[in-house]
Each structure stands twice: as structure tokens, then as C-alpha cells.
């Protein structure tokens, strides 16, 4: 069982699917000969050739548009957008074709395609390279939005995304591409989509997060445990559609909830979860639902981005505030 990083597990999953299913095709900028801007497709061009791993021109609308065409003809394209901030030229294709082809054709044509892209800050990058705009995509009915938080999940979820009959947006937390390693077996076992993972059971408070922020959330939970506060930690995994039932059941048990997201505060997934909890778990809440988020401003550049993104200290503060509420 190899001990690998998250980006390596993405590579392993792509490799597995290229091997298993001849309909799977990768396409994107510099993903072929060069192996991808983050090396996610490293070695695959050499192994599968230019008909399976396509280097495209620098045109995101083309990458997604081409994928729509291939997927509608029963191929399984896996497109890579170099950074999430580059998705906007392709937003037209995503909103008007990808998300609604099944509905438009009354189920006659589905699009089994995946759009992979690294998202999030923390890597000292220039403008457009650090945003977390998952909510923009989650808001479009017809898309599944999936974010893994560790190597094993990246592997299992990417397999599931590629095998799904409908379009999946697969957001990769690039900040933790290489910060942790896990033993990941290349066993072809897909993880379930559309359900969140309760990865740590606890009785005092429920922490909900996803993607790179799980890293800080886990650390905060461990710190609180040492103080005698027992945290239940939920990895959201599938951002849309939301598995709110698992979260509600957890909050019914703990009575308290803090949601951690890297994205700006307003109109995000954290707000959506909080609203659902207010509707469905109000009778069990012992304290207001807490949110630890980025700010309602453009993601700052390298020098101040660490002040923008939630850190362990901010999460711990919010947990304490929620626990002390009387």
C-alpha cells in the first residue's frame, strides 16, 4: 500500500480509471507532456498516449465545451482547470449546458463528466489563484460538487465522480496537496457521494467543514479534546447536494454546532447549513450556530492571506464562545 500525498492519490485514481475504462479521457492545459501545473497527471501521457491525455489550448470554454460534446456521446471526459479562478470563461458552458443537459433532454442525454480544479488559498499565489468559490457552483441545480480532505478520500471520491452518470465538479484543496500522507490502496473502491463523513464522534459540539479547512478543524478538535470538550467532526465531502440529515442528527445529539469554511462569510455553504439547522434542529440547539469563515472581501495576496483564512485559533475561539453560551 503506497503512502502518498493528496495530489498523488488524484494521479492514482486517474491512472486507475484510464486503465479500467477506455471511455475515460483526460483533457486540460499542460496536463499531457508536462504532467500538469501541480503534477496531478504526471506520467499519464507517457502511459496512455495523446488520444487519452489531451493537451488543450489555453481556453477554458473550449475545455468544458469539448467535454460536454464527448460526454453527450457516452465518453467520460475528466477535464482539468488549472486553478479555480480560471473557471469563469467556462461558466457559460457549465451553467447553460453541463448543469442542465439531463433536464433539457428530459433524461435522454446525461453528461458523465468531471471537471477537476484546485481551489483555495494558503500557497502565496497571485490574483485569481486562491479563491474558494464552491458556493457559486453548488448553487446551480444539476451539478454535484465534491471536495476531498485527505489522500484516501481524494482517491475514493474521484473514482466515484468519474463513474457517476452526471456531471461532478471535483475541487481539490491545493494547500494540502502535499502536507499529509496516507496509506492508500489502489483497489478501485469508490467512496459514496452525496453523504458526509462523521470522522470523529463526540458529545459536546459538532464541527462541520470540508476540504483544506478540515486540516485546521481536526487540530482544533484535538486541542478541545485535551480540555475536556468532546467534538464530533463532520467532513462535508459532497457540497451539493447537501446531506443535511447527518448533520441534523449530530446536532440533535450535541446541541451545538460550529461550521468552518475558507470562503467569504456571506451567501456561502456555511450559511446554507446554518439555515437548514435553524429549520430542522432549532428545538435541540443550546447555543447559536457559529461560523468561522473568510471575510467578505477579495482574497488578499500572499502577505495577508493567512489573516483572511480561518486558523486553529479562530476555530478554537468560536468553539469556546459556543460552549460558554448560556
Amino acid at each position, binding site marked *: 500500500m503506497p*503512502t502518498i500525498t493528496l*495530489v498523488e492519490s488524484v494521479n492514482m485514481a486517474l491512472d486507475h480509471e484510464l486503465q479500467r475504462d477506455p471511455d475515460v479521457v483526460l483533457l486540460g492545459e499542460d496536463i499531457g507532456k508536462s504532467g500538469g*501545473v*501541480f*503534477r496531478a497527471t504526471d506520467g499519464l501521457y507517457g502511459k496512455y498516449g495523446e488520444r487519452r491525455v489531451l493537451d488543450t489550448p489555453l481556453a477554458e470554454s473550449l475545455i468544458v465545451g469539448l467535454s460536454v460534446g464527448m460526454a453527450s456521446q457516452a465518453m467520460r471526459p475528466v477535464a482539468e482547470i488549472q486553478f479555480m479562478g480560471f473557471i469563469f470563461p467556462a461558466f457559460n458552458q457549465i451553467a447553460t449546458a453541463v448543469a442542465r443537459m439531463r433536464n433539457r433532454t428530459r433524461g435522454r442525454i446525461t453528461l458523465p463528466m468531471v471537471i477537476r480544479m484546485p481551489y483555495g488559498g*494558503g*500557497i*502565496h*499565489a*497571485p490574483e485569481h489563484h486562491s479563491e474558494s468559490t464552491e458556493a457559486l457552483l453548488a448553487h446551480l441545480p444539476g451539478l454535484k460538487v465534491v471536495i476531498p480532505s*485527505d489522500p*484516501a*478520500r481524494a482517491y475514493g471520491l474521484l473514482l466515484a465522480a468519474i463513474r457517476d452518470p452526471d456531471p461532478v465538479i471535483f475541487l481539490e484543496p491545493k*494547500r494540502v*496537496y*502535499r*502536507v*499529509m*500522507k*496516507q*496509506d492508500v490502496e489502489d483497489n478501485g*473502491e469508490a*467512496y*459514496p457521494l*452525496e*453523504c*458526509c*463523513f*462523521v*470522522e*470523529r*464522534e463526540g*458529545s*459536546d459540539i459538532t464541527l462541520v467543514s470540508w476540504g483544506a479547512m478540515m*486540516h485546521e478543524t*481536526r487540530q482544533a478538535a484535538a486541542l478541545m479534546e485535551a*480540555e*475536556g*470538550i*468532546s467534538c464530533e*467532526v463532520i*467532513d462535508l465531502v459532497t457540497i451539493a447536494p447537501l*446531506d443535511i440529515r*447527518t448533520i*441534523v*442528527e449530530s446536532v*440533535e*445529539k*450535541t*446541541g451545538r454546532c460550529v461550521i468552518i469554511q475558507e470562503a467569504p462569510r456571506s451567501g456561502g455553504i456555511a450559511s446554507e447549513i446554518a439555515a437548514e439547522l435553524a429549520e430542522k434542529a*432549532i*428545538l*435541540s440547539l*443550546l447555543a447559536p450556530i457559529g461560523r468561522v469563515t473568510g471575510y467578505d472581501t477579495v482574497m488578499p495576496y*500572499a502577505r495577508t492571506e493567512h489573516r483572511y483564512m480561518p486558523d486553529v485559533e479562530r476555530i478554537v475561539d468560536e468553539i*469556546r464562545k459556543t*460552549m*460558554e*453560551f*448560556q
Partner: protein
Amino acid sequence: MTEVFDLPDLGEGLPDAEIVRWFVKVGDVVEAEQPIVEMETAKAVVEVTSPQSGRIIKLHGQEGDVIETGTPLVTFGNAEEFRSAQESSPSQEETGETESRVQTDKISFSAPVVALARKLKVDLGKLAEIKGKQAITLSDVRQAAEEQTALLETPSKAAPVENVTGSNTIAIDFGKGVRAAPRVRSTAKQSGLDISVLKSTGHQDNVTLKDIHNKRVHRPATQATGPGEYRLPQRTQEVTGKPMPIRGDRRSMALNMAKARDTTVNTMITEKADISAWPEKTDVSVRLLRAVTAACMVEPSLNAWFNGEKLERTLHTVVNIGIAVDSPHGLSVPVIKGAEKLSNEELRAELNRLREAVYSKTIKPQELQDATITLSNFGMIAGLFATPIVIPPQVAIVATGRIMEELKLTDQGIVNARYIPVSLSFDHRGATGGDAARFLAAFVADLSLPY
């Protein structure tokens, strides 16, 4: 003096880099700008040069190790430090391995397996039993769902909320596991009621404002099923019909009361305090505490301890008011110390704190000692006048009844007046009837003030 050189960012925001080859070894003396290591980033292989000249006393990794940007790469130092570093450093204590494994769930079900089982309504406990193993894989769950084996019997209803005893020390969980809207919780708290002992009549088995109201006026919720039909209220606690030993607060009450009867000369005097001038939402408890304090200032003979054996009395400089608190465990009397120095807000805060401590049984012994006078507001439940018992060595206890309304004849005609009935007991060995009457007059006068 040692200096640590941290791995700089080798590209546009690369989080780490792998050591390909060291050009130097521990003990080497290098010049500034001399290449010391070859590192491979996610994008390229880069030579890293020394930022200074000096002797290298530590390499923070071996070839093949991944170093995070901003963490130590090499340490520079002088010859002496080199030697001591050589002696003390155990070889490769840190493996450099980052957080490696996911939190494993109890037994062997991983989080994705649990999630998939929930989704497909598969009972993992049953499946493990059938399979005769504890490590269940995703395929096992998928197979079980397909073959319709080991399915959950009831379409997963929310797990019954256990009475979780949180191990934390920060929060006192008033009513954890009880279903109630936030407003109901806050009302219960303001009324000093433990929401978890209330009967819940809401549609979702939740406690409602009505439930609190019913408890507050001490009228257990009974529902007549039709006009003219009467049903006895249900018992509010379990009874056995057999003698049971009493413990804790109830036991100490029994002993103290008997001792009080045997030693004091309990004498009572009553009065009504007109509180018609009070503005809305006046905090009754705080006003009562303030009035006790004021009366102690006017008549210190009742803020006193009396020793019948030595025949001496202590007139206290401080006013420590014992508050009778009725809790499910019995009667206990926490003490507000130095009431004469506290503002209204401070009195309220201290009262809340002590009351919660009694409810949660976290009250400390010293918080139950040194009362110089006692206040009991039994009117929160019901009753007008009472015969309170003075607990020696204290000399007095003030007890107040339920707020009552009466018509009052005034110069302006008949008005609706509001009163608090007051019962004052004192130990006639330690105070005269005059002392007690003066105290009572001051108490009632203070209570009648609008503010």
C-alpha cells in the same frame, strides 16, 4: 550562536520541496551563495544556496525527505556548538512524517463505510455479525444493500437522544437532550427551572412556554377531557409507599430544623409591603435582597449572631444573606456575601450563579456558610404568610409570599394595589420585639420605593 535557515519558497507558493541531494554534510564550512542542496519542487529541480558563510551543524532531513516551506533546512553554528550538537542529537528522532492517518472510528468501520451504510440503510452491526468480521469494506456494504441483507429495520429514525453527560467543565448544560425552542430555554432559566424535569407537551415532544407556566404556578398540567369532567393530576415524582432514608440536603434540613426548635425562641411578626409604585419588569428577588440589606443598616440587631451559652451577640459589619433555594434535591441555603457592597446587577448575577450551582450540585461548602440573616421567597411558588424558622446562631429570617392584589381606598378613590406579604421570624433571646418591628418597618419602607 546557532542560526537556523528555513526552506524559502522555491516557486510561486509551493508548500514544500523534496531533498534530492545534499552538496554538504554536517561539520562542513560553507561560503555565502554556495550551493548546499538540490531540491525538487512540484514544478522543477532547484539548487538552494547558502544564505551565509559558516559551519553547518545540522541538516534537517535526508535525501528523499520532504521539507515544508518555512521549516528548518539547515542549522549553522560554531565549532563548539557543532560538537555539542553531535553529542546530544539522537539520530533522526523526528521522522518528518506529517499527519498520516484518518481518525479511525470505533470498531473498524471507517467514516466512508458508515456514511455509505447510512445512505443505503444497511445495519453495520448486523452486517459485521453476518460476515463474522469487524472490518467491513465499502463493497461489503454495497453487496448487502443489493442482496437486501442486514438492512436497518426502521427507516433510520434519529438515534434516541441519550442523556449525554458532557465531560466538559465550561458549560453547564441546562437541559441538554431536551427539545425546546431557544426562547423556552431562556424563559425556563429566568424562572430558575431545570428544563429537563419539565413535562413536555409540544408536538415534537418539546417543552413549551405553557409547560413552564404550568410548572411555575405549581399546577401540574392536567387536561379535562370534556366539560365538567375532572381528573386528578398525575404524580410529579415516583413514590413507593415505604420508608426511605433521607440524604443530603433533606437530611441536613431535618437536623437543623430540630436543633433550631430546641434552642431558639422563634417569634413571628407579619406585614404587607405596598409595591404598587414599582415599574414594570422590576426584579423582585433583587429588590428583596436590597430591602433586607437596607433593614440591616437601620436595625443591626437582626443582622446578628446570638450565642445562648455564653450569652453574647455579634452585630455584624457585613450583610451575608442566606437564600433559601428549592431544588429537586431539597432545600439549600447558599449565601450572598457582602450584599451591602453589591449593585443590583451584581446581586442578580450572584443569585443566578448560586442558584445554578445548587441545581448542578457544584456549590462549594464555603458558599453555604457564614450567613448573618436569611431570606426565603416562597411566594415564587405559592403562599402568603408563613412561620419561618430562625437557624441559630442567626437571629432573623425574612420570608416573603406571593404578590397579591387588593383594592385600596385612597384620596383618589379606589385603586388596585399590589402587595408583597412579609413574615419575619426572630430569636427573641437575641432581639427585642421593638428591634424586630423597626427592622420590619425599614424592610417594608425600602420595598415600597419605586426604584
